[in-house]
C-alpha cells in the first residue's frame, strides 16, 4: 500500500549536469537505489529520482532531475535548470576533457539558476585511482575559486555519494535558516510544507528502501 504519510517538510529540486558518460545517472541510481548500474543507457532529455533525507532534523524530499550529457540535448536540458535549489556538477577524474568542460557547465548553471542555487562539484569514478587524470588538488582549487562545494565520489562503490547529496542539502537548509534563501521567491527550488505533522513517522511500506535516511 502506498498510502505514504506526509513525511517531509521540504522539497528541494536538484539538477545533475556534466559531460556524457561521467556517471550522472549512476550517481543518482546509487543514491536512490543503493545499487551500481553497470550498463546504464544514455539518458534522453531528463530522468527523475526522489529520496527523502534528514537534514538538520527535518525530512527533506529531494526531487532530482538527471539531465542528459550529450551535446545534442543541451538546448532542451537547459530548460530544466530553472528553479533548482541545488546542482551537482559532475566530471570524470579519469577523463580530463570532462574536467575541461566544467567552465561551460558552470556558466550555464550560473546563468540559468538563481544566485542562491548551491552548486557542488563532484569528481566521479574515484574508485579508478590508477587511471586518474585530474588531481584532487587541482579540482579543489577550481571549486574554491568558484565558490563550489567539492567531493570526489564513486557511483560504483557508493563512496561519498550520499555525502554529495547531503552536503548540498545542508547548505541549502542553512541558506533557508539564515534567511538568504527566500522561500517565497518563485524559483527558489524549495517548497516548504508547513502543515506537515512532525514528519517523524516512516511508513513500513514498499517505499521504505527509498526513504531510508542516514539515521
Amino acid at each position, binding site marked *: *500500500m*502506498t*498510502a*505514504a*504519510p*506526509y513525511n517531509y517538510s521540504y522539497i528541494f529540486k536538484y539538477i545533475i549536469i556534466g559531460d556524457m558518460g561521467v556517471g550522472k545517472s549512476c550517481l543518482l541510481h546509487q543514491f536512490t537505489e543503493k545499487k551500481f548500474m553497470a550498463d546504464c*543507457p544514455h539518458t*534522453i*532529455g*531528463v530522468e*527523475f529520482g*526522489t529520496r527523502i533525507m534528514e537534514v538538520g532534523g527535518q525530512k527533506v524530499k529531494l*526531487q532530482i*532531475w538527471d539531465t542528459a550529457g550529450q551535446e*545534442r*540535448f543541451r*538546448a*532542451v536540458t537547459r*530548460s*530544466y535548470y*530553472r528553479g533548482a535549489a541545488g546542482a551537482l556538477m559532475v566530471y570524470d577524474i579519469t577523463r580530463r576533457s570532462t574536467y575541461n568542460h566544467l567552465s561551460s557547465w558552470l556558466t550555464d548553471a550560473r546563468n540559468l539558476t538563481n544566485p542562491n542555487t548551491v552548486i557542488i562539484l563532484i569528481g566521479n569514478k574515484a574508485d579508478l585511482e590508477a587511471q586518474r587524470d585530474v588531481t584532487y588538488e587541482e579540482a579543489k582549487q577550481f571549486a574554491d575559486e568558484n565558490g563550489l562545494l567539492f567531493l570526489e565520489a564513486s557511483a560504483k562503490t557508493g563512496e561519498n555519494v550520499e555525502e554529495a547529496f547531503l552536503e548540498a542539502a545542508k547548505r541549502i537548509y542553512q541558506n533557508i535558516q539564515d534567511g538568504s534563501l527566500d522561500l517565497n521567491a518563485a524559483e527558489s527550488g524549495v517548497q516548504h*510544507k508547513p*502543515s506537515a*505533522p512532525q514528519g517523524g513517522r516512516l511508513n513500513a511500506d514498499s*517505499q521504505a528502501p527509498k526513504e531510508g535516511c542516514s539515521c
Partner: protein
Amino acid sequence: MSDGEDSCTAATEGSTSPPGTPDMSLPVAMDTSTDVAPTRRARRRAESQPEIEETPKQQQQQQQQQEEKGEEPGQASSQSSQSSVAHTGWGYWGSWGKSILSTATATVATVGQGLTQVMEKAETSLGIPSPTELSAQLEEEHRQDVVMDGSNEADTADDLSAVGGAMGMLSSLSSVVQSTGKTVISGGLDALEFIGKKTMDVIAEGDPGFKKTKGLMSRNATLSQVLREAKEREQLQTTESDASEKKTVAHYGVMFDDFQGLSHLEALEILSRESEAKVRSVLTTLSGDELLQLRDELDFIKDSFALVEFDDEDVDEKKDEDGSEFEKEFMEAVEGLSVSATAHKLMTACRSACTNVSITNQRKEEEESERTTHSVEEVHAAAIRSLAELTARSIELFHKVAETTLFSGGCTEASVLSQLTVLLCKELSLLSKRFTSCLTAAGANEKADVLNPLITGVFLEASNSASYIQDAFLLLLPILQISHIKRNAEASQQ
C-alpha cells in the same frame, strides 16, 4: 467529509423516505456493462447540458401547475423527489452517470449554466421581472410552500447520499438541480446560494481531488502544481485518517507521483511554455504574407490537435483480455516517434495491469470454493495503482516525445499523437471497467456504502487519468509548432 456522512445517516434514520425510494440496503443489481468511462471533460460539456435543460421545463410545468391550482405544494415537491429517486438505480447511471461522473470537473460550470437558464426561462415564461421582486411577490402565498420544499429537498438529498459516494453524488446533484428550479422561483436568491454550495459540497465529497479540478477550471495554476496540491491534500488526509483508523486507502495522487508522473508533467509543462513563448516571439518578427502564411500553418497544426475524439461506447471490456490488441496498436502508433524505451516501460505497466486484473479474477474463482474472502480494498488498491502507473507512463511518453521532437528537429505528426491519446484513454477506460467488475465480484457481500465509494473512486480516477493524458497531449501543440517553424527556417537557409 465526515460532516456530510454524519448528517446523512442522521437524516436517513430520522425521516420517512418519500414514496418510491428504493431499498437502500440493496446494492441495486449492478449492470457492469454500464458506461462510465473516462472522457474528456470539456467535450462532454455540451452533451450534459441538454439533460440539465430538461430540468427547467419540468420545473416550469410543476410551477405552472401549482400556479393554476394554487395548492398542493407538498404533492408537487414529492413528485420532484420521486422523479429524482427513480433515477438513482445503477441502470440510470448509464446516461446521467456518464455525463456527470466523467465531467466532474465541468459539472460545476454546467450546473451553473443550467441554473441561469432555469432562472431566465422561469422569468420569461412567468413574466416576472426579477428574482428579488419575484420572491417578494411570492413570499406571502408560497411561504408554506418554501418551507415544505426546503425540508423535502433536504430529506431527498440526504437519503440519496446515504447510498454511498457514487450514487450520493449523482442523485443529490440531480435532485438538487430538479428541486432547485422550483425553489429558485419560489425562494429566490437563497436557493441559488443553496444550490451553489450544495453542488460544490456534493462534488467535493465525491471527488477527493476536487481541488485540482477546481484549479484547472480557473487555469491560474499549472497542471502539475494543481496535481501536487491535490496530492498533498490527500497525503494530509491519509495522515489524519491514519491516526483515527488503521484502514489503508489507495491514493492515486501519491502513486502517480511515485511513478514520477508529476515530474514528467512538470518537465513537459516547462518545454511547452518555452515553446509557446518562442512561437509568439517568432510571430512578432514577421509581417504581411509571411505572417499570414505561418499563421495558417500553425492553425493547421492546431486543428489537428482539436480532432481528438474518442467514443467510450466502443470500449468493450470483454475484448482484448490480455491487452495484446492494445499492445499491437500501441507499438504501431509509437513506431516513428523514437521513444522506444519509454514506450516499452508503458507496455510493461499495461501488462502488469492486465495481470492484476486476471489475478484478482482468479482469486475470486478460488474464493468460491475455499470461502477465503478477498478484500475489496486490495482490488481497489490494485486498480488505483494500475491507473496511476499507466497514466504516469503515458505522461512520460508525451514528455519524451516533446524532448525528441525538440532536439531531433524531426516532424512529429499530430495525427499520430492524437491516435495515441485515444488509444491510451480507451485502455484506461477498459481497465477501469475490468477493475470495477472485479470489485463488484469481490464485494458481493459488502454493504453498498463500502463498495460504492470504492467503485466511484476507480471511475473517477480513470476519468481524471484520461483528462491528464489529454491535457498532456495538448501541451505538445506549441512544441510541434516551434519544431515546424525551425524546420521551415532550416529549409529556407539551404
